[in-house]
């Protein structure tokens, strides 16, 4: 069964025809060619596919493209503005929050959700809110520091995002 869906992704409206069973992550990667959103486990465990769906972090390997009809989506490609990295991206850069980078887009989108709810999280809050994201190489220490960097930077310049 085919459906017409209209989705706004990183500010651009797309109308496409999708199969009922097309997963949202495949729509984003294979139809829209936004390959920054990764597929790690494909079983809702790792968070590599995390995007913002109507402002909230979700794992889009566990969603249908059809469920996104009418939604506003932001992927990792939507963060940098005019070539300037978003403070969270800068944090991961400055604090060595990545090694291979595979988990990073998902980590950053989950951090975005966190910082919008809790602008100045403590370490425990950062770890709790990133429980849905696994990193197999960096170790979480530097990821925590990256989020702390972003949190400081973002509270210094309100409205920066």
């Amino acid at each position: 069964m085919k459906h017409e869906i209209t989705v706004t992704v990183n500010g651009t409206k797309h109308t496409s025809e999708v199969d009922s069973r097309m997963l949202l992550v495949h729509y984003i990667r294979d139809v829209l060619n936004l390959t920054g959103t990764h597929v790690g486990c494909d079983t809702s465990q790792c968070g590599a596919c995390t995007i913002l769906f109507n402002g909230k972090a979700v794992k889009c390997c566990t969603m249908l493209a059809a469920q996104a009809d009418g939604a506003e989506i932001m992927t990792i490609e939507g963060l940098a503005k005019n070539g300037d990295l978003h403070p969270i991206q800068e944090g991961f850069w400055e604090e060595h929050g990545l090694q291979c980078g595979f988990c990073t887009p998902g980590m950053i989108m989950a951090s975005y959700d966190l910082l919008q709810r809790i602008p100045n999280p403590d370490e425990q809050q950062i770890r709790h809110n990133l429980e849905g994201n696994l990193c197999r190489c960096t170790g979480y220490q530097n990821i925590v520091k990256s989020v702390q960097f972003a949190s400081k930077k973002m509270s210094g310049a309100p409205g920066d995002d």
Partner: protein
Amino acid sequence: MYPAEFDYHRPESVSDAIKLLQENPEAKLLAGGHSLLPVMKLRLAQPSALVDISRISDLKGVREDGDTIVIGAMTTYSELMGSDVIKQKLPCLIDAADNVGDVQVRNMGTIGGACAHCDPASDFPAILLALESEIKSVGPNGERTQSSSEFFMDMFTPKLEPDEVVTEIRIPNVSNIAKATYIKFAHPASGYAIVGIGAVRTNDGNVQLSVTGSVPIAARLSAVESEISGKDLSDDNIKAAAEKATEGLDFVGDIHASDEYRAHLTKVYARRALESLK
């Protein structure tokens, strides 16, 4: 991983959803999809159609109806955690929700979906049982309200017809709750409950306790309740009552934890839950 072929429908109302379920006997309701889609991707379920009810606005949100708190079935865990009514009157549900999966799961998973799925390791059935909640559903023959202990019938089996839609979770007599809590021993990788205990003390001295994770389907710990109710929560009384936590129950075992270990943990967590009711 792609699920097998199916049709997708997004009805505007509960009555349209029921019609679709009647027309498609192999169809399933889709809420947040965070239990259903993973099993469809593994082809453990192959419904002919999905009926997406997640956006029906009548099924969303938290409201008060006298002394009852009503949670719309399609309210997500995060929406529940953001509700002022829940924050003020039932903070135990915030603790329980904050224990479910991770942020992303809480942003999609719904309370109604968690009830209807009857996963033996699910958190909400336990706390909802301890709160003596009721589950309201609508089908072709009208609506009915069941107690949660009737509703949570068996593993993955709610007391629900295939063309019935859960619409509300109702928590009655909220002003009679003196203290309530949900504690959990989570599997360190999946986050699901190896054992979870919901516990409530009412103003008239009753203690209501329930367990999930270690048993085939969430259940009340009646032996503990009758031992402790009406007594003061002294260390000795709590210890004696928690010893009864395994009475009348069958325990499940798997590669993560044996049935004996789960039974043991049930006693330990029953004791801790009772202590936190002091």
